[in-house]
């Protein structure tokens, strides 16, 4: 599983170029999260590519080639933090859910419940969330929604943006 962090211009059409590139080049995105950053002219994405054998370097180069893409980084090659939020609604009582979650380390909170259902959030590692989901049976679920993985490198570095490149004409 590869997590890619990407900064792009916060402009209409920019996201569709990034996503379009994946289908165009025959790659699959497992998850994607996107929102503006502290600089409102930039949006930041984290993408997860699970596919075995995908040529990540080629994907990174193709992404960086897009004019709207300012910076790309493969978080999986760096010492990084990743985090995912999931909201899960199950056909189970609160007690059953609490039992179920005992073996997991991620943060959890029950948000809504009655006798025949429980809504809870979990916040943690994507793999752990996926392990939980795979443990459940199809009929246990009412619905699930996930944020997609968010990621950044550890340490005091940032996904630096080059300053605007000035192109002068004589």
């Amino acid at each position, binding site marked *: 599983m590869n997590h890619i962090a990407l900064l792009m*211009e916060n402009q*209409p*059409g920019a996201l*569709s*170029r990034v996503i*379009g590139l994946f289908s*165009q080049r025959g790659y699959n995105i497992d998850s994607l999260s996107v929102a503006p950053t502290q600089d409102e002219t930039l949006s930041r994405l984290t993408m997860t590519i699970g596919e075995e054998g995908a040529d990540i*370097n*080629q994907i990174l*180069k*193709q992404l*960086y*080639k*897009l*004019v*709207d*893409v*300012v*910076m790309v980084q493969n978080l999986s090659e760096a010492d990084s933090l990743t985090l995912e939020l999931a909201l899960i609604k199950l056909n189970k009582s609160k007690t059953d859910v609490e039992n179920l979650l005992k073996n997991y380390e991620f943060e959890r909170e029950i948000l809504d419940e009655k006798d025949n259902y429980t809504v809870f959030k979990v916040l943690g590692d994507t793999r752990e969330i996926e392990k939980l989901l795979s443990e459940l049976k199809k009929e246990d679920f009412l619905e699930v929604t996930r944020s997609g993985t968010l990621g950044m490198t550890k340490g005091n570095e940032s996904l630096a*943006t*080059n*300053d*605007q*490149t*000035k*192109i*002068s*004409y004589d």
Partner: protein
Amino acid sequence: MAKVMTSGGEALIRALADENVDIIFGYPGGAALHIYDAIYQQERVQHILVRHEQAATHAADGFARATGKPGVCLVTSGPGATNAITGIATAYMDSIPLVVISGQVPNHLIGTDAFQETDMMGISRPIVKHSFLVQKPEEIPVIVKKAFHIATSGRPGPVVIDVPKNLTDPNEKFEYKFPSDLYLRSFALYDEAQDRDVKKAVKLLTEAERPVIYAGGGAINSNAAEEIYEFGKLMGCPVTNTLMGLGVYPASDEQFVGMLGMHGTYEANMVMHEADLIMAIGARFDDRITNNPNKFGLQAKKIHIDSDPSSIDKIINVDVSMTGNAKKVISQINKELKAMNFDNKKFSPWMKKAMQWRSEHGLNHNMLNQKNTGDIILPQQVIQSAYKATGGKAFVTSDVGQHQMFAAQYYHFNEPRKWINSGGLGTMGFGLPAAMGVKFAFPDETVACITGEGSIQMCIQELSTCGQYGLPIKIINLNNRALGMVKQWQDMQYGGRYSSISYEDSLPDFIKLAESYGHVGMKVEKLSELEAAMEECFALKDKLVFLDVYVDPDEHVYPMLKAGGDMSEMFLSKTEKTFK
């Protein structure tokens, strides 16, 4: 300076003029009418009215390929935009700088399925280098400047500017400001290679025993012909060009082994297969070159120069890569080779080997003089005759199919930008409109369109444009009464089952057709008449001539690489092949 007040439409045309554009190709329609009104009221930019938007893009593309400057076209929304798509994709695949301006329905109607609305940004997205949807009329000059910069820099490509009609309203004026500088965030351009990589490359080059220089369209885009010639001479080794690269190294030079790949020469493909060093310059190891990539250049170390980092290690992993401008990188390498007084004598046995391959199975460039087929005209003879009649100096555009391969093989291109064809996308219908673009760029030069009766009918309506603007293009139609390349594949791979390739009974009389547009039509059916007709065709300086040549319908293009094989596995004729 006095303030200049313009509407969006006027700003657009003025910005084109300020970008030194003097000609654009297009077709008007509702959403573009404000822009057309602005064109009418100025003289700096000439508009050429084509007969179909596909032709506008191909004409702009031909103009760009011949001049190295960006081509510009203007179309309306909806069908105007969708008709332009094939031409945009053609330019995208061959990395040609185009700026395509499309009218769009007014802002407030976008998304309502308005009359002649189509999502041009969405439809064109996978086949453009970049695209802009204009949001405010004031930003038009900056967008135009950015579009030209993006289209022409690095690996060139088409850029679309989609302009909603209300933003070109003649009644809404604003102050026109053409920017002197541009700001683009993180727009990486690669220029020279790093010294370290140049040294590594030179080491591999000088330590090799059997090097080959393989140059493609990127070498032409970066105007590297002079540097590559010098490099070729410093190395004294075989040089091959791709279909897109023909002319970047002179075809008449003794080191030139011809085009490589699917229909490359025997000697070029053998050289590639047996080389111990492959030096790729502005070429992308396309599937029509490498044949089976897993069997490609197994004995060779590889060096790759490309302006696009994503081309490197995409198909073939290389030992040394240099992302940069081929002209500058080759100069760097030449400088090193000269500084070390490199003696290329050790490559002469290898060069001799290449010449031996040529003498064994090279192309026969003397077919025109060997009149052993009776009256039957072979397509190769037509190309040889055209070469002879033009002294090899013409701009030659082509369509797609057998005639394209025969032209590439038999018309010797000694200069870059003289051979203009759709290599990547393989677009039938490209040849005639591309020739128009070339002729507008070089009105005093000879421009020939080598085509077939299949391809020419895909943009035949442009005979009307040629009439309107008096474009004396020479159309050499290799008429074999069938879709020849498809037929060849059906012969070779489908047991001769000719599925949907024939229309012999319903072909137009091309002579009458040309005449009905005010042109000259000539028909040649016998070999004995070919050369005189060809001479006459090119001697009629002021007329478009449609030379309809009936060629042998059963001829195949050879050599041809065996599907899935390596580069030494070729069919050499209907009866000979290099593999078991």
